């Protein structure tokens, strides 16, 4: 799926032959995908097809074994997790990973405050941060819960808070790993609204999901992985109607 | 953080080891007597560390946490011997045997026995025997065992009468069991009635012989006191597991919770020992006479050989149990995957409890050896515990071979280091070694695969 240089501007994120091996197993195997600038791209595939590994590789949570990632024109061989905000990337995790033993408000404020090491010591939580945090927490509907510990929230609220935390970081690319899993309808709608809002702001959203209903509704582009390799990519309905997709899911 | 060795690191490791070996070799050639002396001292101290490390590793490779109680277990073991023998060593001048301690220990033993009987016998015989009868019988047995413990502890000067026959019986049963297993092994894993008969005969003969020896020779009281101390320390370890760690394991996944709790136990027990026995150091007499033999220009005590022998025999015994018995298989399975072990029908709680018992008994033996070698004091366990911990980490976390290798290596390095440094720096050398190892080879010498 490598593109000619002229088309490159259309893609905010590309991977060139990236691989990741665990022991003898290739979780991601020479994968080359391109993700269009703006809009929502969904990554689907059966269990063990390497979706979460791909997200982990792109966010620097796992080191790349081979290959290059091109983010907005920057060619990177290694991605350090702490540099991802500089690359304008942030993410959520499949199993929700909040800062459990601090308050909901602090979970958001952590993301907003300065990255400058010594300046942080002298920085108090000012009104500007607080306002922004309130804005985000109201969007995810958790302003009333701001003083609760993150560990005391219900699963759905944790999921929402994690998405809110990612949103608080003002970046272009959001990698969301199973943002809809285990949510009940009201929460689901809320997440959908959030994602739509982000899309309208011109952000790029990449999400992994196994819920095809939502993929149909939300995604503009679809990437289907199977066995760590690219199976198909393109417009959602086109791809989903291909027989390969069905057979990948149902097994042979 | 934990990475496999890279080839470069392994090369550096080999080079370093080679340089150290060459250096030691050169020093040894230039002054062989001294080398002999240091080597033997090192191995002797290393045996203590190795026993400690084996205890740590056994527990760590099963439930993946370091039980710091073993520091206290070492002190308990050494002070147990002192407790049982003080009347004769010190005459009437210092009477430590107090009913309070005896009653507490008897209660602990009764409680543990009750639980073990319940967990093993009750679940096995429930369907065949009336549960109420089982409970009553089990309870009575536990009470009897507790009373017996009290008896043994109250009359330490008659240890050879009170505990001798029991020890002989235990040895006999262990011999029968071990021999049967050995014969089966030799016959390709298949049992035979003749083997059983031979094993029983040999075991019975051994038991009778040992029994007669133990009862008749008052000198045997020392060996018996070692056994009693190890059993007591092990029982306390089991009680702690059953009473505390089981619940903590259910509540929290954090390894630090249990580490801190066991640190608290270490703190409390150390202080208890100094309250009961006072904090001044006391010597334990050398059991084999203090006249050293001169071998190759070095003065070597018979006790040093004994310590090394105990470590090696203990290691081999544990290794063969782990390798060849179904108990050992269960232990290793739990270390691999506790949940699946439960699914395939292993009563994990009981098996882990036994592991805690054995580990603490090993630590107690280490304490006893160290006590006979130098002296005992209530805080001796703290440093021994740390050395055992270092040895198990340097040798390779969770690997029994690594534990014994690490133990002996640590002992040797400490001794050879003071050849050129002053003796008081040996603890620094030990911890320096640890930090060096953890920084460059976090998985230790023999990493668990």
């Amino acid at each position, binding site marked *: 799926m490598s593109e000619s240089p002229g088309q490159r501007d259309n893609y905010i994120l590309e991977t060139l032959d990236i691989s990741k091996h665990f022991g003898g*197993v290739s979780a991601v195997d020479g994968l080359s995908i391109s993700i269009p600038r703006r809009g929502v791209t969904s990554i689907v595939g*059966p*269990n*063990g097809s390497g979706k979460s590994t791909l997200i982990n590789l792109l966010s620097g949570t796992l080191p790349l074994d081979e290959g290059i990632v091109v983010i907005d024109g920057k060619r990177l061989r290694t991605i350090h997790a702490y540099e991802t905000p500089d690359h304008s990337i942030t993410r959520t995790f499949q199993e929700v990973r909040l800062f459990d033993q601090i308050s909901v408000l602090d979970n958001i404020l952590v993301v907003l405050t300065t990255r400058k090491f010594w300046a942080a010591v002298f920085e108090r939580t000012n009104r500007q941060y607080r306002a922004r945090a309130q804005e985000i927490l109201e969007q995810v509907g958790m302003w009333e819960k701001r003083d609760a510990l993150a560990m005391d929230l*219900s*699963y*759905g*609220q944790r999921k929402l808070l994690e998405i809110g935390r990612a949103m608080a970081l003002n970046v272009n690319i959001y990698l969301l790993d199973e943002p809809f*899993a*285990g*949510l*009940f*309808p009201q*929460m689901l709608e809320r997440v959908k609204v959030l994602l739509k809002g982000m899309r309208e702001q011109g952000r790029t959203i990449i999400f992994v999901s*196994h*819920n*095809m*209903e*939502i*993929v*149909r509704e939300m995604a503009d582009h679809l990437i289907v992985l199977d066995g760590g390799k690219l199976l198909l990519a393109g417009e959602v309905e086109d791809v*989903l109607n291909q027989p390969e997709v*069905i057979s990948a*899911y*149902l*097994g*042979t | 953080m934990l990475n496999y060795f890279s080839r470069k690191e392994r090369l550096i490791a080999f080079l370093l080891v080679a340089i150290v070996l060459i250096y030691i070799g050169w020093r040894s050639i230039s002054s062989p007597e001294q080398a002999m002396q240091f080597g033997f001292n090192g191995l002797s101290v290393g045996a203590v560390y190795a026993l400690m490390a084996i205890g740590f590793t056994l527990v760590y490779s099963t439930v993946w946490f370091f039980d710091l109680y073993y520091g206290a277990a070492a002190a308990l073991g050494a002070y147990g011997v002192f407790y049982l023998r003080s009347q004769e060593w010190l005459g009437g001048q210092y009477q430590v045997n107090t009913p309070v301690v005896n009653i507490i220990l008897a209660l602990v033993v009764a409680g543990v026995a009750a639980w073990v009987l319940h967990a093993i016998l009750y*679940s096995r015989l429930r369907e065949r025997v009336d549960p109420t009868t089982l409970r009553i019988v089990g309870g009575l047995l536990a009470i009897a065992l507790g009373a017996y413990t009290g008896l043994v502890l109250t009359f330490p000067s008659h240890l050879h009468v009170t505990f001798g026959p029991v020890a002989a019986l235990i040895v006999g049963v262990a011999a029968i069991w071990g021999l049967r297993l050995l014969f*089966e092994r030799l016959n390709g*894993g*298949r*049992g035979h009635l003749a083997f059983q008969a031979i094993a029983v005969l040999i075991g019975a003969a051994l038991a009778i012989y040992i029994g007669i020896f133990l009862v008749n020779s008052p000198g045997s009281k020392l060996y018996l006191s070692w056994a009693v101390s190890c059993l007591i320390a092990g029982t306390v370890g089991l009680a702690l597991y059953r009473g505390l760690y089981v619940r903590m394991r259910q509540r929290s996944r954090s390894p630090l919770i249990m580490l801190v709790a066991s640190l608290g136990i270490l703190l409390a027990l150390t202080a208890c020992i100094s309250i009961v026995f006072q904090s001044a150091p006391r010597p334990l007499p050398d059991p084999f006479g203090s006249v050293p033999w001169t071998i190759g220009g070095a003065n070597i005590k018979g006790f040093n050989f004994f310590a090394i022998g105990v470590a090696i025999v203990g290691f081999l015994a544990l290794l063969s149990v782990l390798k060849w018995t*179904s108990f050992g*298989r*269960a232990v*290793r*399975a739990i*270390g*691999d*995957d506790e*949940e*699946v*072990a*439960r*699914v*395939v*029908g*292993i*009563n*994990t709680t009981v098996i882990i409890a036994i592991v805690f018992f054995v580990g603490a008994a090993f630590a107690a033996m280490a304490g006893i050896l160290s006590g006979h070698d130098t002296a005992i004091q209530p805080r001796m366990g703290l440093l021994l515990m740390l050395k055992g911990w270092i040895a198990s980490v340097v040798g390779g976390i969770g690997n029994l071979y690594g534990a014994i290798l690490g133990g002996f290596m640590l002992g040797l390095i400490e001794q050879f280091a003071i050849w050129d440094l002053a003796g008081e720096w040996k603890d620094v050398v030990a911890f320096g070694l640890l930090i060096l190892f953890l920084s460059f080879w976090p998985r230790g010498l023999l990493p*668990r*695969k």
Partner: protein
Amino acid sequence: MEQHSSTTEIRPHTASEGMTLELRDVSVHFGAVAALQNVSLGVTTGELAAVMGPNGAGKSTVLKAIMGLAPVTGGQVFWRGAPLMAATHEIVKQGISFVPQGRRVFTHLSVSENLELGCLYLNDRAEQQRRLDSVLELFPVLYDKRRDMASQMSGGQQQMLALGRGLMANPEALLLDEPTLGLAPIIVKEVFEKVHEINEKLQTTIFVVEHNINGVLDIANRAYVLDKGRLVHSGTPQSVQETNILTDVFLGRLGGESEDEL
């Protein structure tokens, strides 16, 4: 895979009417998350029942609920008509073997040790040895590797080992959790054939949770489809294939709601 003469020592169980293993109205909650809601399903003696559904449908939870590894908050599991209340480590003695997901073999133990652990509770060396021989006969691939460490085997072999370990208990019912997950297609086929063979020859009741629909439907006698913690279909494999229920479930055309309590 070559055919084997079935002179194995594992005795076939006699068939009887009614469900041998049954979940009645079972609900499972992990904290506030409902993994199963009022699910009723079961398997009769000698049958092979398959539970299917997409990720997160609660398939594996069904088996975990039986084995006492998941917190059952409602309903009950019945085994031979009586409530199953034993502790996890005692269930295997009652004739139910569980082969967990992800080929969880004991990697630091040799193959034959792994197998022996399957019937460690017996305390009867001779019987253990007999069963070991018969299982090794059933799985020739394990016989060749019986002295190797389990960690040195390929994924397919490890799966066979896990199956063999389950069979060592001579179970009346075998619970298989995703036995083909992450295996290459050719191995998947082999695993299904083996499962079929166990079911046919040993008359072992099998309860299999599977995502590979096409493979499992060929060998199943009974099929259940779960979606979002609820049972959405039960019947014969034919009935599943005739309706579009699977495609609907997998491609999200079914609608329906999963619940998340606050």
